């Protein structure tokens, strides 16, 4: 399965958003996920299956003025 993650092509076995986040070792607390320009709330991550060609944006809050 090929995904576009933050603009970069990544490959992996089919999985849910929750599984993908866990595989990457990302801290879920700080993470905001957008799938094909739709925001996916954290409680939905285990239910949403990633598909070939999906565009995933992983964002977080940072310092800014």
């Amino acid at each position, binding site marked *: 399965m090929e995904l576009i993650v*933050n603009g970069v092509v990544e490959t992996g076995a089919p999985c849910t958003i929750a599984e993908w986040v866990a595989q990457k070792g990302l801290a879920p607390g700080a993470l905001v996920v957008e799938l094909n320009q739709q925001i996916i709330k954290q409680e939905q991550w285990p239910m949403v299956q990633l598909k070939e060609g999906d565009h995933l944006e992983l964002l977080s809050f940072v310092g800014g003025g």
Partner: protein
Amino acid sequence: MKDDTLQLGGKILSNRLLTGTGKFAAHAQIPEMLAASGSQMITVALRRIDTTTRSENILDFIPKKVTLLPNTSGARSAEQAVRIARIAREAGCGDFIKIEVITDMRYLMPDNWETLKATEILAKEGFIVLPYVLPDLPLAKRLENAGAAAVMPLGAPIGTNRGLETKPLIEMLIENCTVPIIVDAGIGRPSHAAAAMEMGADAVLVNTAIATAKDPVAMGRAFDLAVKAGRAAYLAELAGESATARASSPLTGFLDE
């Protein structure tokens, strides 16, 4: 002075210093700065994460009683600003949004036209919209009509610490707008903040001048005092100026008269 509060979209602030989270040497300085300055609203930005490194969650450093003001920095169009605003709200950051649309990378001048478009859209969606703009009175009136909760004119370009270079233009907004005017960007010293408040600004937003001071916590406190002094002076109504001297002591009854 006790009841001198600022209302922003239903939120009542008793402190008129808004702060930012950018450029601190360590995130741990942020809660200390907030405690020292009394600031009740602070900006954050949203960015793509680097999936190869682990980093701290900045929200962990902001006490829950402080209201988050996410900004749309990084947006180069109204459409991008709207997208960032919606993400910030979905992420649980509340309804406040500082619209920042910048297309000029040398001076970081806000794009007033795109900012107005984003304000129109987001206000309709129920956001509490605080647009960051180059001070321009007709634009400010359009922002008001579009539902902006405040207008945030710049004093000088972001991060320059040059103060109120746009002072006469900000004064026009203060005199003619009904929504609060919050001077944002360019304020480099507490005296700049005091000057903005003295002339009737409703609040100021300070980031660089606090975060990059040698002691950001002490500087946060200095800005708090300056904002309070400026506000008190505004409410007391300043005495008039004169081109010639006006004696403070009586001009009669001298010893040799």
